[in-house]
C-alpha cells in the first residue's frame, strides 16, 4: 500500500499522544481537518498494511518496577530459524531483530522485576544452548522514537 500525504500527516500526529477524551479520533480529525470516520478508516488501513505495527499505550516497565534490557546472541546460520522460534516464544521478548553481524540476533527483554532479566536470559540460554549477552542501558541520551513519515 502506498501512503498518501494525508496518511503521512496522520501517522506523524499519531506518534504523539492520543487525547484521553470520549472521542479521541474525532479530536485528532479536527486538528488535521479530517472526519472521525476518515481517521478510523485510515488507521485501520495502515494497521492492515503493516505501516502501523501497533496502536495503543506505550508502557514503561521500568516505571512499574520492572526492567528492559537489550540482549544479543551469536546464532549459527544453520540454526537461525529454529533459535528465532525458541526466543520469540518467550513473552518477555518484546522485539527481536536479525542484524548483519556475528552477533546476529538482537532482542529486548521486558520483565516485571529487575531480577527477571537475568532469569529470563538464563532460561533462553538453557532453551537455545547459546550464550545470551546482556547490554543494559547505563545512560539514556535521547528517547525520541518518532520517525517523520
Amino acid at each position, binding site marked *: 500500500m502506498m*501512503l498518501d500525504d494525508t496518511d503521512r500527516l496522520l*501517522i506523524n500526529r*499519531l*506518534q*504523539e*499522544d*492520543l487525547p*484521553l477524551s*470520549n*472521542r479521541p*479520533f474525532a479530536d485528532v480529525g479536527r486538528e488535521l481537518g479530517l472526519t472521525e470516520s476518515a481517521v*478510523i478508516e485510515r*488507521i485501520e488501513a*495502515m*494497521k492492515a*498494511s*503493516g*505501516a*502501523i*505495527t*501497533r*496502536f*495503543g*499505550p*506505550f*508502557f*514503561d516497565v521500568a*516505571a*512499574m518496577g520492572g526492567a528492559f534490557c*537489550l540482549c544479543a546472541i551469536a546464532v549459527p546460520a544453520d540454526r537461525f530459524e529454529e533459535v*528465532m522460534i525458541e*526466543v*520469540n516464544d518467550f*513473552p*518477555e521478548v*518484546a*522485539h*527481536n*531483530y*536479525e*542484524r*548483519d*553481524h*556475528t*552477533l546476529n540476533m*538482537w*532482542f529486548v527483554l*521486558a520483565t516485571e522485576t529487575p531480577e527477571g532479566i537475568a532469569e529470563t536470559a538464563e532460561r533462553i540460554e538453557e532453551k537455545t544452548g547459546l550464550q545470551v*549477552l546482556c*547490554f*543494559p542501558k*547505563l*545512560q*539514556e*541520551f*535521547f528517547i*525520541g*522514537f518518532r*520517525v517523520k*513519515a
Partner: protein
Amino acid sequence: MSVETKISDREIIAALQGGLPIVAAPYAEVADKLGMSEVDLVARIAAMKDSGAIRRIAAAPNHYKLGMVANGMTVWDVDDTQVANLGTQIGALPFVTHCYERPRARDNDWPYNLFAMVHGGTPAEVEAKRSEIAAILGDACQGHDILYSKRILKKTGLRLRKRG
C-alpha cells in the same frame, strides 16, 4: 471499596497491551470489557501517565513501510570519561532515534559502549549520518561498527506473562 478500585492496574494493562481498539469511543469499549466506567478508566490511565507507567498512547510505525528501509545500529568505543558529554551530543542529532551508553563485552569481542540508532531511506544516507557521528566523536572514539537490520523477527511491545 468501590467496584472500580477492585480492578488492578495489571488488569488494565492486560486489557490494553494488545493495543487500543480503533473505534469512535475506544476507552468506553475497553472500560466496558473491564466492567468499569469510561470516566474511571480514563482517570486510571491518566494516573498511569503521571507515574510514567504509560509514556503515551500512540502509533508504532513500521520504519520499513515508511520508506526508512535502511536502519543501522551504530556502535562506538568511546572514552569513558567523555561518553556522557559526547552521548548527549549524539542523542541530540535529528536522525538518531535512540542513544544509550551500555556496558562493553570485551570477552566477546565487543568493545563498544555507545549505541545510536540511525534510520535512512538508503544505506548511503545511513553511512553519511554515521560519518557525521564519527566526526563529532573524533579522537575520543577508538573503534566503531554498524549493524544493519535484516529482518524484524518479532515486535509486540509489552506482554505480561500469564499468572496461574
